[in-house]
């Protein structure tokens, strides 16, 4: 049905709701099962020896299968962070929240997750507290679903 916007232009408002069912595959499956047990799994490439997290089925650079699984440290350093204060589809938790790239000890890439465990309401306080190079450690949800957010966030040490 046609309605009108503020400028008087005729518009039609509609929604597209599409259900998807994605194949998880053995690699993500094993990684998510690891999260349920409070373990963070990576895989090591037999050719370049890099340890990549989350675990991968193949090394993106060497293009060979990565079949060696390694449990990695739950501690690391912040490489980048962003305080997000707006809402959008696919949001992990209600804003404000801090998205981050974290270098977990012993790995050869950086890991996307959240920084939390403290008050995020004041930008200046957050800026004084969160710094690149800062050490953080994973904090787990009590109830696990086999989901990336079974890790609640990484807390500053």
């Amino acid at each position, binding site marked *: *049905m*046609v309605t009108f*916007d503020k400028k008087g*232009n*005729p*518009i*039609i*408002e*509609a*929604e*597209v*709701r*599409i*259900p*998807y*069912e*994605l*194949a*998880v595959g053995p690699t993500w*499956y094993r990684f998510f099962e690891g999260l349920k047990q409070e373990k963070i799994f990576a895989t090591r490439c037999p050719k370049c020896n890099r340890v990549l997290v989350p675990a991968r089925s193949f090394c993106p650079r060497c293009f060979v299968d990565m079949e060696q699984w390694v449990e990695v440290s739950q501690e690391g350093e912040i490489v980048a962070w962003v305080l997000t204060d707006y809402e959008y*589809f696919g949001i992990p938790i209600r804003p404000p929240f801090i998205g981050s790239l974290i270098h977990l000890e012993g790995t050869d890439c950086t890991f996307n997750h959240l920084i939390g465990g403290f008050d995020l309401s004041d930008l200046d306080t957050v800026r004084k507290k969160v710094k690149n190079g800062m050490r953080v450690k994973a904090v787990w949800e009590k109830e696990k679903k086999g989901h990336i957010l079974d890790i609640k966030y990484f807390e500053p040490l």
Partner: protein
Amino acid sequence: MAKHFQTLRHDVWLPYKFAVGPTFHRFYEGLKEEKILANQCPKCGRILVPARTFCPTCYVDMGDWREVAQEGEVVSWSLAHDEFFGMPVDPPFIGALIRLDGTDCNFLHLIGGLDLSNQDTVRGKIRQGARVKAVWSDEKTGHLLDIKYFQPV
């Protein structure tokens, strides 16, 4: 034993706000008044329905608007049984291409007003060239389904 693979169910739900533009708007307003509006290309003279902004063949802006006949011939039709996203009405229903009298293109709509439960009965009643006439909904909202369907005459 059948292997069970894990899957992730995930809905993508997106809201849209489409610009209707003056051409479709005028066409929809026509439907509210039980009129089917077309317009004519000033270059090739073809009469196209629904009305267009520009002639796809000549690429010029379309010219005069006119009301066209609400009767025409079936060019092609298809009986749909299964549900799908974006379906116009609950199945079973018949989608059809209809050449309204006096126009130069085929118009997409539904054929209805007959029992659709038996495929064979339908095939007997609907064929290429059959004449059909628009039947209007009681309530109009300025939507293509203000025409309820085209019924065999």
